[in-house]
């Protein structure tokens, strides 16, 4: 709903950026035209100076009306000019001499004219190039600013949604447990009726625990070296211990552990526990009853240790295998269970796995076909 209200503001940003691009492009265009005019003016001034110089020299030196060979002409020494026989002046660089010397005219030397034209063209090309570069720089800068502001806005929105979800995650279990306690205070319930409700309440407490743990892990990942100094541990035995410690959570699912080969790897026990808890929570959240989980630890000499966590839950579209690891992202907003969670669990788990020198990847054949998460860890030989 708040998205609806922010739309006009968002459109305002787009319009603002559009106007900024237009204004800056117009400024560059104006600047280019101004510089081009200045260059033209300079060119004209040079030509006029040349003509004026030619006239002045003709007047000074043309008093001798006798024909002189070209090399003896009074202007022969001037690198810019030459005296030629011509019947009429057809361009601004041909200057007729005084009426007593009509068959001769002064002409700017071709080399000098070519140099003038070349200089003019070079400067025009330079201005055009500079303008183009400037426009590109402006466009790139504005585009980057636009991207930056869009990203900032997206992050702010995601953070807002994250806090909404954290609030939801904090308050929802409390609501259920409060309702249970109020009910128990006011009336008695049959044991058969109470037991499944207590299971639900316990699950809520575990969710609270998981939330607190993930927030703590997120903070520890920023402030400490959590996971950066893995030690050699027996992953198979660790998972076995983990399953034993989480019997309460596993009461509603059929969990199966397989260990093949040596299960030694470099891992951080805290980090590994957080990863397993998040994978377990994820499997429970998107479970399809009867919920089945298979954890396989397989180690082959010379290769990373693989821990595969598979469930028979709701799965996801194969093209979402990477997106589900994004921060604040949840598997599928449409699926039952998707209104729970903060969207941080898988993100933190992958970061932890990578800090330990390994990786965490996901795979699913599609919605309704279960999901499989593979944690790879370095072996002591690799480390």
């Amino acid at each position, binding site marked *: *709903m*708040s998205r609806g*209200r922010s739309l006009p503001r968002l459109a305002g940003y787009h319009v603002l950026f559009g106007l900024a691009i237009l204004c800056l492009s117009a400024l560059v265009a104006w600047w280019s035209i101004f510089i081009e005019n200045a260059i033209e003016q300079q060119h004209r001034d040079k030509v006029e100076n040349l003509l004026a110089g030619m006239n002045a020299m003709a007047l000074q030196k043309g008093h001798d009306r006798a024909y002189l060979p070209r090399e003896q002409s009074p202007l022969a020494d001037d690198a810019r000019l030459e005296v030629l026989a011509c019947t009429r002046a057809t361009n601004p660089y041909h200057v007729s001499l005084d009426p007593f010397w009509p068959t001769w005219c002064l002409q700017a030397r071709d080399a000098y004219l070519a140099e003038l034209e070349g200089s003019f063209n070079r400067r025009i090309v330079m201005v055009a190039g500079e303008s183009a570069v400037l426009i590109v720089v402006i466009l790139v800068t504005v585009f980057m600013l636009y991207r930056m502001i869009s990203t900032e806005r997206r992050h702010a929105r995601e953070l807002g949604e994250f806090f*909404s979800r954290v*609030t*939801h995650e*904090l*308050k*929802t*279990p*409390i*609501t*259920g*447990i*409060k*309702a*249970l306690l*109020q*009910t128990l205070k006011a*009336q008695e319930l049959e044991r058969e009726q109470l037991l499944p*409700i207590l299971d*639900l*309440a316990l*699950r*809520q407490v575990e969710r609270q625990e998981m939330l607190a743990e993930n927030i703590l892990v997120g903070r520890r990942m920023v402030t400490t070296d959590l996971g950066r100094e893995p030690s050699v541990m027996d992953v198979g035995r660790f998972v076995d211990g983990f399953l034993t410690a989480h019997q309460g959570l596993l009461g509603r699912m059929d969990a199966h552990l397989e260990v093949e080969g040596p299960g030694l790897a470099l891992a951080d026990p805290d980090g590994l526990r957080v990863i397993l808890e998040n994978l377990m929570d994820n499997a429970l959240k998107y479970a399809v009853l009867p919920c089945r989980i298979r954890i396989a630890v397989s180690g082959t000499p010379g290769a990373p240790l693989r821990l595969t966590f598979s469930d028979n839950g709701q799965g996801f579209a194969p093209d979402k295998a990477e997106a589900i690891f994004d921060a604040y992202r949840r598997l599928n*907003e*449409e*699926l*039952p*269970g*998707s*209104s*729970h969670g903060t969207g941080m669990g898988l993100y933190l788990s992958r970061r932890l796995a990578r800090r330990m020198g390994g990786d965490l990847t996901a795979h699913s054949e599609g919605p309704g076909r279960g999901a499989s998460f593979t944690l790879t860890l370095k072996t002591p030989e690799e480390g």
Partner: protein
Amino acid sequence: MPRILLIEDEELIRTMVALNLRRQGFEVDAFDRAEAMVDKAANGGYDLILLDIMLPGISGPEGLKRLRRQGVTTPVIMLTAVKDVSTKIDVLNLGADDYLAKPFDLGELTARVRALLRRSQAVAAPDTKEGQP
């Protein structure tokens, strides 16, 4: 016996609210998705709907919008953990009749349910003594 439709995806809350309302003498049908509400409430027969805001699939406010668009005027109380003023205004503007923030008190929930039912019944059946000679 007043019939209540409860839409809440959190199983513990759904179970406890339904249990308590049933003990208070209400007939309660509970579901975890708003899609169920749109189908069920459109067919009528419910006196009140308790609707969570954050639901998988169709959200509570979206479900409410669809409900009102279909012309269903059953009173609706929204339940949610988000209690900022803008959300309250939005859901009330969408056609909700009341709003209860989590974690709520079961006694308050029951009192609000009764109050809303009284009001809607009073609107449905105005006091006929008024205006009589």
